[in-house]
């Protein structure tokens, strides 16, 4: 075993272990950052595969994304710190079966498939190649990604901001009827006397 092999096993086991811990902890904050730990280890494995930029970019991206995820998890989950004991899993039997089947399937693929063995030359200018690709053949993809992300930004603002340029975001909104063809019930509207609609109490 070379040093790279040892490092691979260390990171791989750490990634799996912290991924497993995500489901064993009661605290949403711990769960978010255990998931981050798992991603960090995956990023390290990418670096071992000499995908230097992808690996380090994964560390960067996943960190800020998990921070944002933690903010929202704590906002909307009941008992976010797990101070009260609670059951963290739903439908455990189905989940167990699905987990075993998926693991077996992926494991089979990993063992059976003859993966190509094409080591990258450590001196290869992979980052430069990536940049050239973004400015060459993949330019259209790159610019479409820009437009897609613009749409994401606009949608995120529309969906999340409570107040816009024209006043309250919920002004004039009418709740749909509970059943098709049913009557509109004013007490379901978000605006007005604060009744109904927004008394959701989280949950997980």
């Amino acid at each position: 075993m070379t040093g790279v092999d040892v490092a691979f096993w260390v990171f791989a086991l750490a990634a799996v272990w912290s991924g497993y811990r995500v489901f064993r902890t009661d605290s949403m904050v711990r769960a978010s950052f255990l998931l981050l730990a798992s991603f960090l280890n995956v990023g390290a494995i990418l670096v071992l595969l000499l995908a230097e930029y992808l690996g380090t970019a994964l560390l960067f991206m996943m960190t800020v994304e998990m921070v944002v995820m933690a903010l929202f998890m704590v906002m909307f989950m009941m008992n976010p710190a797990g101070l009260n004991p609670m059951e963290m899993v739903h439908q455990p039997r189905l989940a167990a079966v699905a987990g075993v089947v998926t693991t077996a399937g992926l494991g089979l693929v990993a063992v059976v498939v003859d993966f190509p063995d094409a080591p990258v030359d450590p001196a290869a200018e992979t980052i430069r190649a990536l940049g050239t690709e973004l400015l060459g053949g993949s330019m259209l993809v790159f610019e479409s990604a820009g437009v897609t992300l613009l749409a994401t930004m606009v949608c995120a603002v529309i969906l999340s901001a409570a107040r816009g340029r024209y006043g309250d975001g919920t002004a004039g909104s009418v709740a749909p009827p509970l059943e098709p063809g049913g009557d509109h019930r004013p007490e379901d509207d978000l605006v007005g006397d604060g009744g109904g609609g927004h008394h959701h109490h989280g949950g997980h």
Partner: protein
Amino acid sequence: MLSAFLAGLTVTAAATLATAACVVLARRAAGAMSTAPQRVPVLGGSQPETHAWSRFHVRYYPMTLLFIAFEMEMMFMYPWAVVYVEEGLKALVEMGMFLAILSVGVVYAWREGAFRWQ
């Protein structure tokens, strides 16, 4: 290259472990746990009614979503910067377009007041 990463990882781990060891040893050495009145969070003499951990109402959540989208874009720019000098004007124009699209998003968010505390 990998040896450089290994050295960096070693340095990080060493600093982390040394700091953690200081704190843990000091906590061990202090012996007795904090007493119940000592454990009450600092509020200037009063007691909180509830635990502090709660569904915390973050006031800047539209900004965080915007940030995620923006940050994802930025990851394209690192390799772009490396080949910029080589590609010259083409790179400048392409990135100009890209940034212009992004700026539209930021200006829109600003007009809608998404950076205000909700």
